[in-house]
C-alpha cells in the first residue's frame, strides 16, 4: 500500500461519482454520487496526511464530513420541497429558469 495506490483509489472513486452525476437524471442518485466524490477527496486527504506525518489532513476530513452532513440535510430538504411542487425527481424536468 503506497500513497500512489491510495490516490489512485480516490481517483477511481471520484471518477465513478462524476460518472454518476453525468449519466443519471434522478436527483437523489446525483446527490449520492456527490457524496461519493466527497469521500474520494476525504480518502486522498487522509492518504496525504499519513504521507506528511501529521494530523492536519485528518482534522480537515473531520470538517469535510461535518460540512457534508449539512449539505445532505439541505440538499434532501430541497429535493422534498421540489417534489412537493413538481412531483418529480428528474433533473431534466426542473428547468423553470430556462423557460
Amino acid at each position: 500500500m503506497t500513497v500512489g495506490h491510495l490516490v489512485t483509489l480516490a481517483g477511481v472513486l471520484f471518477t465513478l461519482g462524476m460518472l454518476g452525476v453525468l449519466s443519471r437524471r434522478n436527483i437523489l442518485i446525483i446527490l449520492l454520487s456527490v457524496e461519493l466524490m466527497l469521500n474520494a477527496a476525504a480518502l486522498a486527504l487522509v492518504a496525504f496526511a499519513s504521507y506528511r506525518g501529521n494530523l492536519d489532513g485528518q482534522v480537515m476530513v473531520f470538517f469535510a464530513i461535518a460540512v457534508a452532513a449539512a449539505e445532505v440535510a439541505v440538499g434532501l430538504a430541497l429535493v422534498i420541497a421540489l417534489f412537493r411542487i413538481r412531483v418529480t425527481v428528474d433533473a431534466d424536468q426542473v428547468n423553470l429558469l430556462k423557460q
Partner: protein
Amino acid sequence: MTTLFFWIFAVVVAGSALLAITRRNGVAAALWAASSFIGIAGVFVLLGAYFLAVVEVLVYAGAIMVLFLFVIMLLNLREADLKVVQGPRMHVGGAILGALFLAALVWTCRRSGLFDVPVGAGGPIGETGTVAAPLFRDYVLPFEIVSFLLLAAMVGAVLLTKRRLS
C-alpha cells in the same frame, strides 16, 4: 497483510460505488453507497485514522444514508420515475473524461514517485485524543464555525420542508 486488506477494501469501495451509480432502485443504490463508505472506513483503519473510521461509519454509513433512505421511502417514487437515465452521449463523454482524468492522475503519481512511498505502518495515529489536540488548539475557530453551519443547515432544512410559512 496490510496490502491484502488494502486490496480487499479497494475492491469493496470501487465495486460498491459502481453498483451504487448503476442501480435503478434508489434504496439499492443508497445501500451500495453505504457499503462503499464502510470500505473507506476500512482503508482509514489501515492508515491509522481510527477516529475518522468511526466517524465515517457513524455519520456517513449511519446518519447520512438513513437520511437518504428516509427521503427515498418518503417520496415513494413510481417505477416510471426511476427508469430515466441520460442519453448515450453523456455516458460516452463521461467515460472519456473519467479515463483521461484517471490517466493524468496515475501519470502524475508515477512521475512524482508516489508509488514508491509506502504508508500505513509508522504513520501518525489518529486516535480521538491525538485528533482532538490540533482540533481544539489550531482549528478552534473553524470548529466553532462548523457548529454554526450545522445549526444553519438544521434550521434551513426545517424551513425548506415546511408546507406553508406563516
